[in-house]
């Protein structure tokens, strides 16, 4: 199957769904589910035929001869891991949106999102990468703008402003790269060893920092998350943020290794600040979904610290934690959104005693929360342990500071349990109905199973993840 099908096919499919999907909700839902499952199968196929070390060329298309500008598609283990993660999350997002209103439009937008995101992870051409990068935002705007909560316009404008300013920086950087090297191909850029990339490095770093997000470019995220419907929060945290981290690894660390080594301390410092700052924010927060959002930012700080090690082990740990973060934070967002939907309140003070009313839902919330604070047996612990070891190896013993971060995590998570799950049953909880759609609940169960499975058997993931950086490490690039 041509990769182009997965990049441009969804656009056609989305149009079809939008035009003919009205009043055919069930068909629409199954069609999108089928597409996402197909994407997953395709990604797994790619993994199977991928050589142990190196790339798989998927061809070049749409060449504009004079400028060396063409749609070059290439995958390595890093891209394939991201593709698998994305397709799994898309499947789970589709399941979680089973009872969403205005079904056909919603699912058309989800399908529309699947195309460019595939393009982002496959493209090795900077310009096409950028085009896909921007195109992912279009369905996102509508999904937040139409299905969002009361303050969605403000959140969407803020999101728009942040990401577009960031995009301009990225685009400018790409032009500078083109001016310096005469090519837009990432692999060629890396090999050409740019002579004066300081400005380029900063432009790219700040541009991608916004998406990850890293302090001080993070304030769009809590607003966007709060206003977005719960499944779209999953997409934001699980896919869009990961796109930023992916780009940070691929285009900052791996494409500009010299400058990254020079400015590693910047990445490290901002990562640590993000870890603690967002942790303290979460500790102070009484708004359930904002608490989850800050917890998400805090974990991305941890990913940033891991990236800052610029080492084989550190980058593997970062990629693992990215997956862990997606699996952990998604059920938290879904449950937070569901609780708001049913109780009409965001305030943790209004809740309490949920365990008595909805024990299974509470149990999954507790499991995901424990994973967020890094309890062994969950994927969160493996991420924290590997990052701690890699960071100490690269920067010395004072990085045991990271351990303190997981204490703050324990603080806000356990205190959230106390306020929402345990304790005496509150009036709001007593009078609300927490029966959940079975398909939506199944999505939560799958998240829970994945959290525990990869927590107990992390080698299933690390086998693939290590292969993402092993070839570069073998060449002495890390």
């Amino acid at each position, binding site marked *: 199957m041509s990769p182009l099908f997965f990049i441009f096919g969804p656009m056609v499919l989305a149009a079809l769904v939008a035009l003919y999907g009205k009043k055919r909700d069930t068909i629409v839902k199954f069609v999108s589910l089928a597409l996402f499952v197909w994407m997953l199968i395709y990604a797994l196929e790619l993994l199977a035929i991928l050589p142990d070390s190196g790339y798989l060329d998927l061809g070049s298309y749409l060449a504009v001869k004079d400028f060396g500008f063409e749609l070059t598609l290439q995958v390595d283990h890093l891209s394939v891991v991201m593709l698998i993660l994305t397709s799994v999350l898309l499947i789970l997002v589709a399941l979680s949106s089973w009872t969403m209103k205005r079904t056909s439009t919603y699912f058309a937008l989800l399908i529309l999102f699947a195309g460019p995101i595939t393009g982002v992870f496959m493209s090795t051409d900077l310009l096409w990468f950028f085009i896909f990068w921007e195109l992912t935002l*279009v369905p996102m705007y509508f999904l937040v703008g139409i299905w969002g909560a009361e303050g969605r316009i403000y959140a969407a404008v803020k999101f728009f402003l942040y990401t577009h300013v960031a995009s301009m920086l990225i685009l400018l950087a790409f032009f500078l790269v083109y001016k310096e090297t005469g090519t837009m191909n990432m692999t060629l850029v890396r090999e050409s060893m740019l002579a004066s990339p300081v400005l380029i490095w900063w432009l790219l770093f700040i541009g991608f920092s916004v998406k990850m997000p890293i302090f001080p470019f993070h304030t769009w995220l809590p607003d966007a998350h709060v206003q977005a419907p719960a499944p779209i929060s999953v997409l934001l945290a699980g896919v869009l943020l990961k796109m930023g981290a992916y780009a940070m690894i691929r285009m900052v660390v791996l494409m500009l290794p010299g400058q990254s080594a020079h400015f590693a301390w910047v990445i490290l410092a901002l990562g640590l600040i993000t870890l603690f700052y967002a942790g303290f924010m979460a*500790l*102070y927060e009484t708004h359930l979904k904002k608490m989850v959002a800050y917890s998400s930012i805090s974990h991305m700080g941890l990913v940033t610290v891991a990236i800052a090690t610029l080492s084989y082990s550190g980058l593997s740990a970062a990629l693992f934690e990215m997956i862990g973060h997606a699996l952990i934070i998604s059920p938290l967002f879904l449950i937070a959104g569901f609780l708001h939907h049913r109780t009409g309140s965001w305030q943790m003070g209004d809740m309490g005693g949920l365990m008595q009313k909805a024990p299974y839902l509470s149990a999954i919330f507790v499991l995901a929360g424990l994973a967020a604070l890094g309890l062994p047996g969950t994927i969160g612990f493996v991420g924290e342990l590997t990052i701690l070891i890699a960071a100490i190896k690269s920067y010395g013993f004072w990085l045991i500071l990271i351990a303190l971060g997981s204490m703050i995590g324990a603080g806000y998570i*356990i205190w959230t349990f106390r306020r929402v799950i345990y304790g005496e049953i509150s009036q709001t909880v007593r009078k609300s109905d927490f029966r959940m759609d079975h398909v939506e609940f199944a999505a939560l169960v799958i998240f829970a199973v994945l959290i525990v499975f990869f927590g107990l058997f992390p080698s299933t993931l690390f086998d693939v993840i290590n292969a993402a950086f092993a070839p570069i490490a073998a060449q002495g690039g890390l």
Partner: protein
Amino acid sequence: MTTLVLVLLILPIIGALIAFTSGLKKNALAFWTAEVTGTLLFLITLILLVDYKDPIDIPMRWFEFGSFSIPFGIYIDKLSLVMLLIATGLGLLDIHFAHDYMGEDPHQPRYYAKVLFFIGGMILLVSAKDMVGLFVGWEFMGLASYLLISFWHQQKDPADAGVSAFLFTRFGDIFLFAAIGLLFYLTGTLDMVKLNELSQAGKLDEEMMFVIAVFIFIAAIGKSGQFPLFPWLMRAMEGPTTVSALIHGATMVNSGIYIVARLFDFYAAAEALMVVATVGALSAFIGATSALVQRELKKVLAYSTMSHLSIAFVGLGVGSLAAGMTHLVNHAIFKALLFLGVGAVIMSAHHVKDMWRLGGLGKKLTWVALFMGMGVLSLSGIPPFSGFFSKDAVIAEAILNPGSAGLIATLVTIAGLLSMAYIGRLWLLTFAGEPRDKGLFGKVTRPSAFWIVLPLGIMAVMTLLMGFFQEHIAEMVSNGPFEEPHVAGLFFGLMSGIVLLALIIYYYYVKRPDLTEKIAAQPLIKTIHSILFNGYYIEKMIFWFAHNVIIESFAKTSHWVDQHIIDAAVNGMIGLSQRITHIFGYTHSGRVGDNSGAMTLGLLLLLAAMLTGGAV
């Protein structure tokens, strides 16, 4: 052998799953699953003990990331076996006891699943070869204790107690976590046996070793409820009494001592043992004095646990692995006995825990009184009960070691003597004299012989018999010949002190209760009483710090910065951009789609212009 060990590790998890799922509707099924699993675990441990020749050593790898590999091996030597016997043996008796104690509870599947998970965590902890495995077991227990302490989560106090337990122990745990990172950095290995060898060979940086040893000890302080991380242990009394017995006897609090014992050579080489002894002596004193004035049965026992674990820590700290560990073993048995005994009393007295409402129960609960009495004698250190030998050994070792002969030996001796006072007071107020609450006394029921009294009897006999096998235990835990320390006049001094204290409390609490009230009304006594009663206000201080420094300073400042500096700047830019877009008039609707469309279009135009420009 290997298979048996793996079964031992996996069985609790399987049992927990069965108890939880198959028992969803039937409480009895959940109990029997737990009872059978507990029995099997104990039998397997016995087989391992009988067949023991050399340490069972199974190196395994968990996963590899980048260029590192994380080990997850199994190592069971005699020290581990002793801990396993305690965990599975006392765990089994605890499950058995719960048949009646938790018999009325509608959520038994959940209860037994968590109990099995708890025991499983302890088994993993003591069987681990590497620090990572130990940490996993360590955290499993932390989680299980959190869930069990707040088992009655519908109520405010147990829910709060769970939070306290998790966060206090977690604070210690992050130091253990950091220590793992440091050890990996420093030595490249997490194998605890190898760490002991490496440190003895003098191949490690001494300052770093000291830091790591202290970090690990902070984790031990958290888990074993030592100063200053003990308040969670007292709050944990909100959980079911069987859970308290499990935490204080079979599992959780022992793990702190175990980790120091496991890394004993490392601690000796790092010269960190004196830190252990000092904190231990201080905690022993605080625990013993606070236990003197508690009103609740379980709180007395909780403070006494703190104090007695400290005595074990002092034993280790003054350099005697044998003395410290035997005291831990003896303590585990008599403390489980006392907790379950108190559980029987509470159950019979319709969940009244206030000692001042009991009294005279010896007439109705004769066997419970008798067996608890044996536990009392063991705890206060009266021969031939086991508690005497180890406590005596620790005090003697503390006096003999020149580093601890002064303050540490004094504090630990005081704590040792005061045991008689607080535990005697508990027993007398509960069982002796006249009932103070006649109405309650009339309603007291008799406990079942098989489910309640039998486990008490077994433990009472154990605590007596163990007194005759002290040397064997000492040799097992320290892997070498054991020489009993001897200090001239110590035995006579301790005994006369204990007898004197026993007479005083008998007179004070039984013969002249009127005197008690008069003395307690004195202002100075009142002040001292309230300091002791509140555990020296350590909990208040920690809460003050957490609230005022962490939340109100750090977190609030972050919040302020976010709102008034970072977000304010962004909002300013949004205002500016809206004014600019207004000029173009196209996007004044504020619809994001229009905005993004226009922006993307602009960017594409710009792109085209630059590209063609570049080409021309």
